[in-house]
Each structure stands twice: as structure tokens, then as C-alpha cells.
């Protein structure tokens, strides 16, 4: 089954904020966590990830800092801010409305077909 990437692009900020809400992460860690959690459905390239993170930082939804990672090397970690948490809740609500609207259209289509 092919995955429509336009479906992903609108949800990326939501996914990133959700991951960072659980724990602070650096860029590579975010891509790996996202891929493993989604069973490789969501595979982010660096060219997509880092501009998104930078834009979230400009909007003060996340902040960055340097810290030693598990491998001992310094990495740039991202951490969600209270403003980011507020944004996350908004996006979650938007997603619920969007997905339930899509579901009700799909279910309504099946009912029509069955009638």
C-alpha cells in the first residue's frame, strides 16, 4: 500500500511535539523513534526534519540545548516548552476533529453503498 506523503506533511508538527512531550531528543533520535513507533510508515529525511524543528524553535514551541548523548558525544537536544504543549493540545484536537470527520464520511459512504 502506498502512503500519501501529503497526509504526513500536515501532521509532522503534531508528531514531533508529541515525541518531545515524552522526552527531550536530538534529531537522529527523533527520526529513529518516529520510524520505529510507526513501523517505518513515517520516515523523515533530514531536509524535512531540521527545518521543522527550527521553525518550531522560532515559534518558541521548543528550545534547544547541547548535551552529551548516550554515545558520549555532544548532541543538540530539543525540549518542548509550555507554549509547545499548548500547541500540541490544539493540534491533537484538530486531528481528532479531522480524523472523525473523515471516518464519518467513509462510514456514511459504506452505508450508502449497502443501501
Amino acid at each position, binding site marked *: 500500500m502506498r502512503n500519501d506523503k501529503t497526509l504526513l506533511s500536515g501532521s509532522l508538527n503534531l508528531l514531533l511535539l508529541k515525541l518531545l512531550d515524552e522526552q527531550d531528543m536530538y*534529531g*537522529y533520535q527523533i*527520526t529513529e523513534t518516529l520510524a520505529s513507533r510507526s513501523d517505518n510508515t513515517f520516515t523523515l529525511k533530514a531536509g524535512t526534519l*531540521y527545518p521543522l524543528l*527550527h521553525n518550531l524553535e522560532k515559534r518558541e514551541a521548543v528550545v534547544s540545548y*547541547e548535551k552529551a548523548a548516550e554515545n558520549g*558525544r555532544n548532541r*543538540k537536544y530539543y525540549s518542548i516548552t509550555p507554549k509547545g504543549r499548548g500547541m500540541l493540545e490544539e493540534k491533537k484536537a484538530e486531528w481528532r476533529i479531522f480524523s472523525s470527520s473523515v471516518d464519518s464520511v467513509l462510514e456514511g459512504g459504506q452505508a450508502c453503498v449497502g443501501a
Partner: protein
Amino acid sequence: MSEHDVFRAYLEKVCEQIRWKKARPVIHKELGDHLEDKQAALIASGSAEDEAANEAVRDMGDALLVGSQLDRSYRPRPAWGVIAVTVILMIVGYYARDYIVHNINSHRTVDVPRSLFFLGAAVVALIVGYFLDYTILGKHPLLIGAGFAAVVMLLPFFDLSLISNNLDYRAYYYGTNLAPFIPLIYAAFLWWWPYKGYGGLIGSYLVLIFITFSWLVFGLLPYAIFHCGICGIMLTAEVLKGKFNIRKSIGMSILYVPVALVGLVIGSSLLKLIARRLSLVMYPWLDPEGAGFMGVQIRQLINGAKWIGRGSYTTDHLSAILDDAMLTVLIHKVGWISFVGILFLFGALFTFSFLQVRRTKSKLGRFTAIAVLSTLMLQCFIYIFNNLFGYFSLAVLPLLSFGNAELLVDSFLIGLMLSVFRTNDVVTDAVIEPRAVPRFRIRFERLR
């Protein structure tokens, strides 16, 4: 571990797409870390080093595309609010000075070409500060501090004759105009100062005392106290934030007990002089033709001022007090409304600047911006206080009052502060590499 050749080639290609050169090292590092981590994961799952490197690069995506996407999101962010208010203040200052000189009875005239020249020079100084890489303050703090000290000490001895043929006056002139740089230089020094403990605190305190007494050499004790006072506040803040890893109560005692003792000694030996000055400050009519002259004129003008329009007090001495009391004269000529307007502009400048300082990530950036902001706020406070009450004439009103050298200095400092705000997205303390602490080893050898 050195960078793999494949990574270096990829990253260089990406960074070539980034038009803002200051962002390139930040992007290079972050993407380079990503490549390293990806390569390490592939090696751990059995790939050879070169194969893992190539795979990691393929996984990143096309270098040109990645670079152009990053170019769109990494742009300098000018602090437009601060810039706008600064430009307005410069223009208001130019026209206010021009208006005042045209509207007082004196032999003073407006040299329009000279005024325009210095206004243009102030804009140039603002731009120079704006595009200057302020991180050099953190990279070479000792060199810059020593260079500054050398300039201050040696400059008066050059007979430039543009200022004066009198050495003492030249020393005074340069000392007053260079004093606003003291908090900036000390802020960078404090950011860099690597020594902890009580020794570290005492060392940084001794540097501050040395700076204060250096200004005494020029006979500029009040300037030393005010500007070094800002440095003292910065040092106090660092003690309270735990920079030196010492007990805060003892740290504060180390800082303020000597100050209190010196104050007591000086106060008791100069008691009569201080009492006389204080009484003149509180009641300048004690010596209206002498030391209290400025105070009397200012208070009379302020008491007679109206909300809009010319004040009721008449005097022939406006020209004599103009340099130190321009705001008083403006209130007298135009009304309190001019004061409210100027207060509003400075309030906007400081508010916008503080909001920017709050979002500044780099500690050096915050130190730099706070040093400049504190200097400007102190100048404003002292000048406005003097112009309302006639207490002491030690400062200029930034960008507004008379004084071409002061205009250039303040413009440059504001430009430097804007440089901090502009580069906030890409400057962190991690990318500033100060010079290593000098270490000296003495080896003894027997002479043969």
C-alpha cells in the same frame, strides 16, 4: 574523530545553499552529527564503514534540496521594533537639538552640515555595530580588555588638537566617552572567566577594582562608580546564580564589606564636603551663582513648565545649561508633552530590548545585551533625574542630547545589541570557543 570525506563533501554542498554564512557552522554540525549517528547505527548492524557512510548520506536526501530547505528557515532576525525606535530617536534628537538652538537667545548657531555629518556617522556606527560579530568579545576577552585599557591610557597623549591642546581635558574627554564600554568589556570578561571558588571571585573582583581606580586616574570617579556599578551588579548576579560554586552569603560579604568599609572611610574623612554637596543638591539656592546655579535654573524652569507651550519662567541662561539640561529646556519650550513623548520612546526601546534579551539563547549574548541595555538605562535615568531636579550632570540622553562623540558611542552600542538579537538563532555558547586559559610552567634546570 575526524569527519568522513563523504560527509564533508555532502555537508559542504548543503552549506553552499545557505545564504546566511553565520548559520553554516551550526547546520554543518547538526547534520554532521546526524550522519555520524546514522553511520554508527549501520556499522552496528553489520555494514562496513565506507558503505555505512554512503548509505547515511543517501538517507539524508539530496544535498541541494536539503540546503535550500534549510536556507528558507535559517535567516537573520532583525529586531525591527528596536531598530524602528532607535531610528525615530535619532531623528527626534536631530530635530529637537536644531529646534532648541534656533529658539533660544544665544550666540550659539546650528552648524547644519556638521550636525548632518554626525547624524550620518551615527547611522554608520549603528550599522557597524549591527554587522559586527559580537562573539569576538567572548573569543578574545583578555586581548580586547587589554587593548581597551591601552587605548584609554594612551589616547590622551596623542595631540590630536581636534579635542583640545590640554592633556587633562583630553583625558577627561576620552575617559567620559569610553566609560560606556566598561560594562560591555567586563561582561565578556565575566562570561569567559573560568576560575571558580573564592579565588575566582576575588580575581574577578580585583579586575573590577582595577578598572574603577583606572578611571580615578582621569579624575572621573562618578563615571567610574556608575559604570563600574553596573559591572558590580553583574558580578553580584553571577555570585547569586552560583557561577563560583561558593556560599552566597560569604560571596556577597567579599563583594560588599570592602565597599562599605571604603565608603565609611571616605565618608568620614570627607564628611564636610559631602554634607555641603548634599545640601546644595537638596537646596541649590544656597549658592545660586556658583555650585547651585544649574540646580536653580533647572528647578525654576521645571516649576514654570506647562503641559503644552512655553513655560512661565524667563531666564537668559538657557544657553549656559543647554548641554547638560537639554530635556529641561525642551520641556520649558514645548511643554511636558515633549517629555511624555520622549519617555514613551525610551520605554518602547527598553521594553522591546528586554523582550529580545529574554529569548537570547547564548549567555554571552545575554551578557552583552544586558551590559549595553544597562548602560543606556543608567544614562537615561541619570540624565532625566538631573533634568527634573538638577542633581548631577554626568550623563547624556542617548541619541537625543548634545554631544557628537556620545551619539556615536551610543549608536554603536545599540548596533552591537541588535547584532546579538539578529544572530540569536545560530549563536549558542557551544559555538563560541574562547581562548584557553593561559598556563605557565616553570622548569628548573641545572646549568652545566
